[in-house]
C-alpha cells in the first residue's frame, strides 16, 4: 500500500514551495516535484508516520555523507514532533528527466551508451564504498536519468551504513529490497553477508538488461521461490545468443559482476568504471 497525501494538503503543509506535480509515491513516502523561492527544483518527500524512524535517520545519514554527481543531493530535512504533530520530510535535488526503466526499454544499448550511463553509476557506487554505505535497493526506478542523459542514484531508504549496527534482526536483515535485483546472498545470507558487492550484483543485472534486452533471471509469472533458485543456482543466461553475441570484454565484465559468490565479484565499482570507460572508447 502506498502512502498518499493529496497535493492540496501538501501545499497547505508547505506553503513556501510551489508545487509542480506529484511524483510516484512509495509505501513510506509521498513525493512531489516542488520549486523553492529561489526557483530551485527540488523533490519533497513527506514521510509516513509509520516509517521506522531509525531507517529514516539512516537514509538521511547516508545522503549527508555522500557528495557525488551521480547521487541525488540532500538539501534539507526535518524530523520533529511538536504538540503531538509529527513533521517529517526530506528535500532532495530534483532530477528532471526519467528513470532508467525507460532507457532499458530501448535495449540493446550501444557500448558507448553503456559506458556513458554506467561509468557514472559505478563511480557513485565507489563514493558510497568510501563511506561504507550500501544502497541495497538498486533498480531502474531508483536511477534517474536527467535531461542530458546523466544518471543519478536516488532513494537511500534501504541504505545501510556498514560502520553502524543494523537494527534489523539477523535472520531477516538480508531480505530488504527488490527481489528481482537481489544478489544470491540477499536470498540466502544474513545481514552480515550484505555489503557493497550486493550493489555490484544489481549493477550487473541492470547492465545485462541494457545489453541483452532481457532480465538474466526473472521471467514473467515466476514465483519468488523460482526466482531465488534462478539467482542462486542458474547460469543459463550466459548461454543465450543475446549474451554470447556481446564483445568478449562485456561478457567477462558481466560474468564477474554476476558471480554467485560475492568474493568473486570486483571489489570496487570504480574498477568496473575504468573498464567500461575503455570499452566505451573502443566502440
Amino acid at each position: 500500500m502506498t502512502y498518499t497525501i493529496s497535493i492540496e494538503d501538501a501545499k497547505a503543509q508547505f506553503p513556501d514551495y510551489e508545487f509542480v506535480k506529484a511524483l510516484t509515491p512509495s509505501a513510506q513516502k509521498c513525493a512531489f516535484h516542488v520549486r523553492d523561492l529561489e526557483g530551485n527544483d527540488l523533490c519533497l518527500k513527506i514521510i509516513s508516520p509509520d516509517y521506522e524512524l531509525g531507517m529514516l535517520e539512516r537514509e538521511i545519514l547516508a545522503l549527508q555523507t555522500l557528495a557525488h554527481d551521480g547521487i541525488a543531493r540532500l538539501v534539507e530535512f526535518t524530523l520533529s514532533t511538536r504538540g503531538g504533530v509529527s513533521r517529517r520530510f526530506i528535500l532532495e535535488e530534483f532530477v528532471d528527466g526519467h528513470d532508467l526503466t525507460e532507457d532499458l526499454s530501448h535495449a540493446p544499448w550501444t557500448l558507448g551508451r553503456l559506458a556513458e550511463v554506467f561509468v557514472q553509476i559505478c563511480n557513485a557506487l565507489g563514493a558510497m564504498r568510501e563511506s561504507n554505505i550500501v544502497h541495497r535497493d538498486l533498480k531502474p526506478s531508483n536511477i534517474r536519468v536527467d535531461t542530458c542523459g546523466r544518471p543519478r542514484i536516488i532513494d537511500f531508504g534501504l541504505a545501510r551504513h556498514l560502520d553502524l549496527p543494523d537494527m534489523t534482526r539477523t535472520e531477516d536483515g538480508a531480505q530488504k529490497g527488490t527481489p528481482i535485483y537481489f544478489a544470491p546472498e540477499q536470498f540466502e545470507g544474513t545481514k552480515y553477508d550484505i555489503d557493497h558487492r550486493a550493489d555490484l550484483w544489481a549493477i550487473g543485472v541492470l547492465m545485462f538488461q541494457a545489453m541483452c534486452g532481457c532480465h538474466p533471471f526473472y521471467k514473467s509469472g515466476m514465483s519468488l521461490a523460482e526466482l531465488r533458485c534462478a539467482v542462486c543456482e542458474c547460469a543459463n543466461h550466459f548461454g543465450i545468443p543475446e549474451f554470447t553475441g556481446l564483445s568478449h570484454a562485456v561478457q567477462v565484465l558481466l560474468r564477474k559482476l554476476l558471480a554467485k559468490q560475492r568474493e568473486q565479484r570486483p571489489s570496487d565499482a570504480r574498477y568496473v568504471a575504468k573498464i567500461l570507460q575503455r570499452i566505451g572508447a573502443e566502440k
Partner: protein
Amino acid sequence: MRRGVWHQFGHQSQTLAKDVLEAGVGVGVIVSPRDLRLDTAVERAEEFRRLGADVLLDPQFHVPGFTNENIATYNLESFRESVNTLRDIPDSDLSELADRLVEVNRRLGSSAVMAPAVLYEAGQREIERLNRRLFSAAQHAAEELGVPVLSTVVLGSSVMSSDETLSAALGAATAHNCDGVFLACEFEALRVPSSRALVERFLNASITIASAGKPVMHGYAGPMALLSFAVGAQAAAVGHFQNLWQFSRDRWGPTPAQGGGPQEFPPRRFFSSSLWGTIVYPDETALLSDPVARLVLTHSPFSGPVSSHADWKPSDSWRHLVYIVGDRATTVAAAGTPRACAAAACAVLDSAVALHADVKREVSLRDGADSYQAEWRDALNAVVASRRDDYDFFELLLC
C-alpha cells in the same frame, strides 16, 4: 605495494635480509615483532630503507593471545588477548589501538599499515566481525599516517578444508575497504605443501582476491613464491626458515626454553632453482655425476664454497636459498600478466620434474624433496584453466 619479493623475518635473520637486499634481491621487508625488539627493529628499518626497501610491520595478531619478550616491546601488548576477550573490545579501546598503530608504524617508517587480524577459522562469524573491527582501527591509523592500509587474511586449516568453507571465509575477509591484502594460509603439518587439492585451493583464494582488483601480497610464501605472481599476486614474502613457508600455528605456542649447549644445525641444504627444491650438501650433491651436478647446482653470490666442495656455513646456505627463490620469483613476475607468469612458473616446474627424474637415477633424495613440484604445476594449470574469467578480468584491469 611494490611489486616483487619481500623479505619476511624470522629469528636472527635481519642481517640475512640486509645481505640479500645488498645482493640485489627484494623490494621490501616485513618486520616480525615476534623475533625482534622494537628499538632494534627501528634501527634495522632505517638500514633497509637506506637500501631502497619498503618496510611493513606485521602486528601478528594471528593467534592474539601469544606474547613474548620481543613482541611486548611494541606497545600493543594490552590488546593481545584471547579471541573471546578481544571480540568484546570496546570502541574506545579500538581507538587506542589505532593510536598505537600510528605510533609504532611511524617509528618504523612503514610504507603501509598492515591490519591486525586473527586467523580465520571455518564457521566462526565472531572472528569475521572481530577482524572487521580490527581492520577499522588500522584504517584510521593509515589515514592518520597518510599511507595505504592492508587487510590481513590468514586462512586457518579449517578454512582450507573445503571449497565451501574457503568461499565463506573469503566472502567476509574481502569485504574490507582496503588498499591491498596480505594473504597467507595454514596448510598442514608438512613444511612444503604437496597436496594438489590444498595448493589448488590456495591458488584459487589468491586469484579470487587479486582478480577482484586489490593488490595481494602472498605472505609466508617460501618456495611457493614461484606461483604467487601466476595467481595475481603483486608481492611474495620469503624467509629462509621452513616454518615461514606457510602460516605455522606451532610458532605461536609457548617458546621452549633454550638449552645451554652448542647450537646444532640440521644438514645444510642447497636450494636449486632447476630442481625448485633442496638437495642435501654435501651428502647428496657429492653423489651426483658432473653433468647432472652442473644442472642442479645453480649458484648465487652466497654459494661459492659449494663449487670447491668446501665447508659451507649454514647461514650462507640460508642466504643462498632466499636469493635463489627471490631472484627466480622476480624473473617470473617480470613476465607480466598472471597468465604469462603462470606459463613461466610452469616451465620452471616442468624442468624441475624432468631433472628430478635424472637425479633420482643417481641419488635417493631425502624427505620427499621431489614430492611437490608436479603437484604444484598441475594445480596451477588447473586454476588457469578453470578461472578463465578471472584471468581475463585481470587483464582488462591491467590494460
